[in-house]
């Protein structure tokens, strides 16, 4: 990833996010029930969608890592999951704010999507202690990939089970936000979704570039201190997966 590409990507991210939020705030109509409070929907829902796609993409990368044994896929998987967890914190916070604003409670158990998201989030939080409890690098990559695949398969299953528990045990209190959105709301939402997706992608690229740089530095350092030992590394730029 060259610096220029990254610059273009981050510029596009900022522009689209600003357009999206401007559309959401000034152009999209006010929600009939909830009024201005509902505007947080344009941030909360895209964040959640992008985070979930990131989790599943992390599983796909884990699968590719197991298939090929190529550590770059492991680095991708790690960065995807890492950033989705960061986005996940934002999802839970914005969700809590929305719940407080519209239903008067910081946490609403009757909202299955939010509960499912919390469970998924808690599962992925164990990725870090699990990953760093394994010392050997190759084994770490393989085990982390197995985790990513298992957790990726778990995400849709969990959403289904939690939703069923709600609809069977309690009647559905809140109609889902999708369904019959007016066109202008939908358009503003989609622009926000693209913006948040680009934000995620930019952060992924930054993280990966950082990992590559630190990998290169430590490889050069190794080559300088004991020349001759660097032969095993080869020319390929494999991201270093140091903690942190």
């Amino acid at each position, binding site marked *: 990833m060259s610096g220029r590409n990254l610059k273009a990507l981050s510029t596009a991210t900022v522009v689209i996010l600003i357009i999206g939020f401007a559309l959401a705030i000034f152009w999209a109509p006010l929600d009939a029930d909830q009024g201005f409070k509902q505007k947080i929907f344009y941030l909360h829902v895209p964040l959640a969608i992008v985070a979930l796609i990131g989790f599943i993409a992390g599983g796909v990368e884990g699968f590719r890592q*197991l298939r090929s044994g190529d550590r770059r896929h492991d680095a991708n998987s790690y960065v995807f999951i890492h950033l989705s967890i960061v986005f996940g914190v934002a999802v839970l916070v914005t969700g809590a704010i929305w719940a407080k604003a519209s239903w008067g409670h910081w946490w609403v158990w009757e909202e299955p999507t939010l509960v499912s998201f919390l*469970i*998924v989030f*808690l*599962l992925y939080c*164990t990725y870090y*202690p*699990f990953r760093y*409890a*394994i*010392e050997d690098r190759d*084994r770490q990559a*393989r*085990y982390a*990939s*197995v*985790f990513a*695949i*298992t*957790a990726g*398969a*778990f995400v849709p*299953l*969990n959403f*289904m*089970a*939690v939703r*069923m*528990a709600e609809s*069977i*045990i309690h009647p559905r209190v809140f109609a889902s936000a999708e369904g019959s959105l007016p066109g202008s709301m939908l358009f503003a939402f989609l622009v926000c979704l693209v913006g948040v997706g680009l934000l995620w992608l930019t952060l992924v690229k930054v993280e990966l570039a950082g990992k590559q740089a630190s990998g290169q530095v430590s490889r050069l350092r190794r080559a300088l201190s004991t020349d001759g030992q660097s032969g095993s590394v080869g020319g390929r730029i494999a991201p270093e997966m140091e903690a942190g």
Partner: protein
Amino acid sequence: MTPSRTAFAALLGKDLRTEIRTMRSLPAMVLFAITTFIIFRYGLDRTTLSGSLAGGVLWTTLLFAAILGINRVFVSEQEEGGFDAFRLAPVDRTVLFTAKAAALFIYLSVLELIVVPTFAVFFLPQWSGLLPLILVLVGANLGFAALGTLISSMAVNSRARDLLVPLLLLPLVVPLMIAATGASAPLLEAGAPSYEEFGTWLLVMGLYDGIFCLVGYAVFEFLLED
């Protein structure tokens, strides 16, 4: 290459024999479960339980007792070199997964054979819901066995084994617990047991079991490479 069936029988037989001779997992699980009932009796301040409360107490207890067993599934292999021996053997790698999952399934069934009747004696006013409950127990055991074997093999080679098993397992079994409690609560209702949504929840459990059996079966060999 030794046929998988022979290898499976040998591994499962070894595990069951070891358990019978050393009694390392099962007695601890049973004791833990029964003590937990006593804590619930005072924690909830109830002498009888029914409906979702009964389902919740039963499944929480079984889940935590299962975690005790899951923690130990691969410990002997790790400590006494069973993994190395297995890697040398000319057998399909996934046989270890199926054999360990089968052993875990048997442990859990034995555990429930003792603990569920105890639960009924302690708390349930009438026992007619226990017979259909067997189906729910089998469904949950399958899920615990597949996922527990997978998680246990992931955790056993890390530094924080005992910590990681519950940490990884608990969020992963939430859907299974939702389905198990959803199916058991109407069965344990005071009065006549009802079968409300019983089939749906069994179906969810079947789906869950199927997915995690497949995932475990597919990825297990990568956990054995060294």
